[in-house]
């Protein structure tokens, strides 16, 4: 579904991504883990067109998307959430999710002037369904900035799913959450995000990774150091070395 071939991303002298080869198969939930600064978010930013790769090719569903602008990649069907939560703070919950529908409205300049968000424009029912699934339908008229953190993360998930993309990237979906909230997010990913689509989860929390991922890929200093089933990867000596600097237990 998604294939990276020798992808590199350099910021000056720093190689944030170094020769990454990665395949994401249709239907899987791939976990990307690695210490801080190992290039996880850079990988995501490169794939979604925040910036172009410095080298290598990226293809999605057979199309070469290397160097495409972010909006074209998004339209093609790759949605994402953000590590430090990006919402439109002064828009309501409903409007935030509706934001992903703009690119699906056809009709050129005139359609731009249709009132919004009106029942007639875009798929309002779909927005409401998604809000219901993440448990935010009650709060639809609340401004996004007034939501507590776990609700904001769920709102981001709803926004990413509303355009029904085949591939979704979740960047630390349980960042800053308590264990109970993390368990809720894991359930949401398993029951709502993963079915019928491919999903890449970037995460630190083993509780989440172990609960949702079908396969893991480990980055360290911009290089892929391991890949495989979660049990095997977490037992890998290199992985333990990279994460903990010694042979401690991976249980956080």
């Amino acid at each position, binding site marked *: 579904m998604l294939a990276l071939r020798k992808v590199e991303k350099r910021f000056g002298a720093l190689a944030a991504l170094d020769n990454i080869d990665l395949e994401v198969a249709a239907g899987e939930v791939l976990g990307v883990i690695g210490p801080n600064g190992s290039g996880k978010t850079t990988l995501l930013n490169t794939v979604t*067109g925040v910036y172009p790769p410095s080298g290598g090719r990226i293809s999605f569903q057979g199309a070469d998307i290397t160097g495409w*602008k972010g909006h074209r990649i*998004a339209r093609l069907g790759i949605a994402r959430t953000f590590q430090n939560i990006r919402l*439109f703070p002064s*828009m309501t919950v409903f*409007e935030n999710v509706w934001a992903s529908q703009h690119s699906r409205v056809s009709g050129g300049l005139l359609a731009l*002037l249709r*009132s*919004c968000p009106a029942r007639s424009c875009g798929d309002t029912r779909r927005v409401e369904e998604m809000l219901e699934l993440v448990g935010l339908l009650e709060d639809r008229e*609340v401004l996004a900035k007034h939501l507590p953190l776990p609700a904001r993360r769920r709102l981001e998930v709803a926004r990413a799913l509303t355009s029904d993309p085949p591939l979704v990237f979740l960047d630390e979906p349980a960042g800053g959450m308590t264990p109970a909230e993390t368990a809720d997010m894991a359930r949401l990913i398993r029951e709502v995000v993963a079915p019928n689509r491919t999903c890449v989860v970037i995460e630190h929390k083993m509780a989440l990774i172990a609960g949702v991922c079908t396969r893991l890929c480990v980055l360290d200093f911009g290089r892929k150091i391991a890949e495989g089933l979660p049990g095997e990867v977490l037992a890998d000596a290199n992985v333990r070395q990279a994460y903990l600097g010694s042979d401690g237990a991976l249980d956080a």
Partner: protein
Amino acid sequence: MDDYVVTVLSNIGMISFIALSAYLLLLTGEISFGQQAYFGLSAYAAGAATAMYQMPIWAGIVVGACAAGLVAMVVGALTLQLSGLYFSIATLAFAEMARLILLIVEIQVDVDGEMVGPEGANGFHGIRWMFERDISLTEFMLLIYGLLALTLICLLLVERSRLGSILRMLGSDDLLAEMQGLNTVRYRILAVGMAGVIAGVGGALYAHFTTYVEPQFFNVMLGVHALAYGLIGGLGTAFGPLIGVAIDIGFLEAIRFIQGYRMIVFGGLVAILLIFMPRGILDEERVHRLKAVFSRRNHARA
């Protein structure tokens, strides 16, 4: 109404156009110090259309507004890579360039034995459409407010439309907007073009109201005021900048004992408002709450 009141009201009306123009860009997250250039360019273009080439005033306004819109889109395309402070500086530089060009441009044509047209630093005299047709100040004021109402209605419709929501998305977080599949470059150029047209309508009216324009009037202070109006009145609705204009010109200029201290009071007011209401009197949150009050479909918790 006496002429003084009509003149003050007309000034409020004409300056409102440039305030709305700056407001539209503030919505998209850009602080432009250059909207006065489009106001000025259009004043010259519209004046040239009616005084030099005997076009009717509506054609003059269309010529001025289109010229301003086109130049704004070109400047917008050139400054796309810039954001924040760098965009502001670039707009200021372009505006000053335009003003300096107007200071040296001399194109005059013979109209009934009299030379008419821009005359460099001496300005552009003889835009006498109003007098030739014996139109009173009050009638012209009605024209100003008619066009202002039309512009305001268009802007309010845009704000309620998908385009308005997209522009606010750009202003709030343009990377996030891009990630929603929106071609942010295209919408940004559209926005600067629209802002240029709006400033242009005001400039065209201004040239015909004063019958005389000079480059000096379109200096950076006009652009700074245009920005301040939105920041005072509020960025939540297009009525915000109009409130800002009304406070500055209507209130501060009209109250005679403040006259000499107008800029001091105005500056102080801007500073105080920016501290306590950083997005103006009618900011997004208050507008949202007002809408909730008026809306029966009110699911809000707060």
